[in-house]
């Protein structure tokens, strides 16, 4: 899914409300936190190992033993959902972390150096940005056998421009402000100005993009697992749980519905969180002083 579009245009508010998240924002944050917690505690919470089969009870409905029932080969759906959460949330987290680790410095460097470096980098970022993450991942998987690592690394490359472009734009806006020029005139070096002054001022804008990037990475990774190119059996993630078409055709969509619900809830919560963070942040206020 192309990333260029999911960036909601930031709208400034007359006054930055202290509780910037507001009720919707907080519920979204709680939901996301709950999902992360479930994923982290999966080994202790999951009643059964991820691949323990019980061929005697395929497609069993919800029961005290299996709260959400079992799949085609009698595996406990709840356990697979919990274990799956580790990959479906851990993967995107790694993707976003890698993108930030590389994207922030790259964006800052490009904004500060300007000139040729900036133009060349902008060009590369635009091209990589135009190619959806899924295609880059599919290509990577084709090169190094299908698996989680190539998929995550490829998505990190695909999401790098997402962070780098936002960082570069925000840093370029700060770069021209008088307070940066005043620091230059004091003799302060470029690196120190970037790290101690520009970065703290743009971190808010950049981090506001993290939830949306996380959501998109989650969708891409789950899609790859759905295509059988990321998580390989017997491991499971939410994408794999939905990919079992035969169960669907035999009229047992329960597993797909639960996994689908988990994905949609997380992604929607992340999207609302991202909206609130972006809206709460005044776009660089254009001061209309007299003359």
């Amino acid at each position: 899914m192309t990333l260029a579009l999911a960036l909601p245009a930031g709208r400034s508010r007359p006054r930055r409300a202290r509780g910037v998240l507001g009720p919707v924002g907080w519920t979204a944050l709680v939901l996301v936190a709950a999902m992360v917690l479930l994923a982290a505690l999966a080994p202790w919470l999951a009643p059964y190992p991820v691949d323990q089969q019980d061929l005697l009870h395929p497609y069993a409905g919800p029961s005290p033993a299996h709260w959400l029932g079992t799949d085609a080969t009698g595996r406990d759906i709840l356990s697979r959902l919990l274990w799956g959460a580790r990959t479906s949330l851990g993967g995107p987290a790694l993707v976003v972390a890698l993108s930030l680790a590389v994207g922030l410095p790259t964006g800052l460097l490009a904004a500060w150096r300007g000139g040729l470096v900036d133009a060349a980098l902008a060009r590369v970022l635009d091209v990589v940005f135009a190619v959806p993450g899924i295609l880059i991942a599919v290509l990577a998987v084709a090169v190094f056998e299908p698996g989680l690592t190539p998929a995550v690394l490829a998505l990190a490359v695909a999401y790098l421009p997402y962070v780098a472009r936002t960082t570069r734009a925000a840093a370029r806006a700060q770069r021209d402000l008088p307070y940066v020029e005043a620091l230059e005139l004091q003799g302060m070096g470029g690196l120190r100005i970037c790290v101690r002054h520009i970065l703290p001022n743009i971190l808010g804008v950049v981090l506001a993009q993290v939830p949306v990037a996380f959501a998109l990475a989650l969708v891409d990774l789950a899609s790859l697992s759905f295509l059988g190119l990321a998580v390989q059996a017997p491991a499971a993630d939410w994408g794999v749980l939905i990919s079992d078409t035969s169960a669907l055709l035999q009229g047992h969509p329960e597993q797909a519905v639960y996994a689908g619900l988990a994905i949609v809830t997380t992604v929607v919560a992340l999207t609302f969180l991202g909206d609130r963070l972006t809206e709460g942040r005044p776009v660089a206020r254009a001061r209309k002083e007299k003359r």
Partner: protein
Amino acid sequence: MTVRELLRTVGAMCVSILAASFVVFASLYAAPGDAESVLFGSTTPTDEVRAAVRDQYRLDDPFLVRYVHWLGSVAHGDFGTSFVGGQSVATRLGATAPTTLALVGLAGLLLVVIGIALGVPMGLRPGRVDTVLTTVVAVVAGIPTFVSATLLIAVFAVGLGWFPAYGADGLRGLVLPALSLALVSSAMLARITRASVRAESGREYVTTARARGLPSRVVVARHILPNAAGPVITAGGLLVAALFAGAIVVENAFGIAGLGSLLVSSVNRQDFPTVQAISLLLVVVFVLTNTLVDLAARGLDPRQRRRAA
């Protein structure tokens, strides 16, 4: 848009496509699995067969020569021969591409119509209607294609039987896939359209129009919408291009024989020539659309248009 500027943009696009093709080719060239092991699998070929095959796939030539040769042949529409079944890649592409194009075309139409039809009213009329719609659209934007595909199959194909569930062809077979493909993208376009319309409605020149007593119908039609169109067209272009990536997922979900499912099956069978060809095609589509959208956005902006006059 001066001709010089046009040439510079097209030039930049060609450079990007060339660079992308190099990356695509180089990555598959560096693939750990050697082409031979894929071609011969477990059978051990005789020396002559081995030599013939190596020559046919030019495996012994240095990397750059193979790249230039590959590029030359691609330019003539010859994508080499598939590792699987010895069929020429071009014919396999020819067989599958139309389906994908039809799917993306239908989905593209749905995307633009739904996206703008929802986005504009949401942007223009704040208040309860807008908040309800915004929430619904935000939720729909959160449903990935493979989830919506599965749900649509479960309800309309398996449940109600209105549409073929799997592996269908012809128009009826494309309705559910196109809907599933367009769903999340149209929600995104609606959000972007809403944001753009809302941003323009707050601009000073709208205040002027209202201060002059122009009816709100005129203010919207002549001032807000034309100015809001720029970002919407840019986003729309990029989203339509992205449908090709979404098609990879949808075609596999519905079992449709398109470029997407061919790509995934080629990856699983390590059929590098086919993977290379499809990847190159898709990358060219994305870079092309990105450039066209950039040109369209700049062409729409009166300032740019007039600099050439």
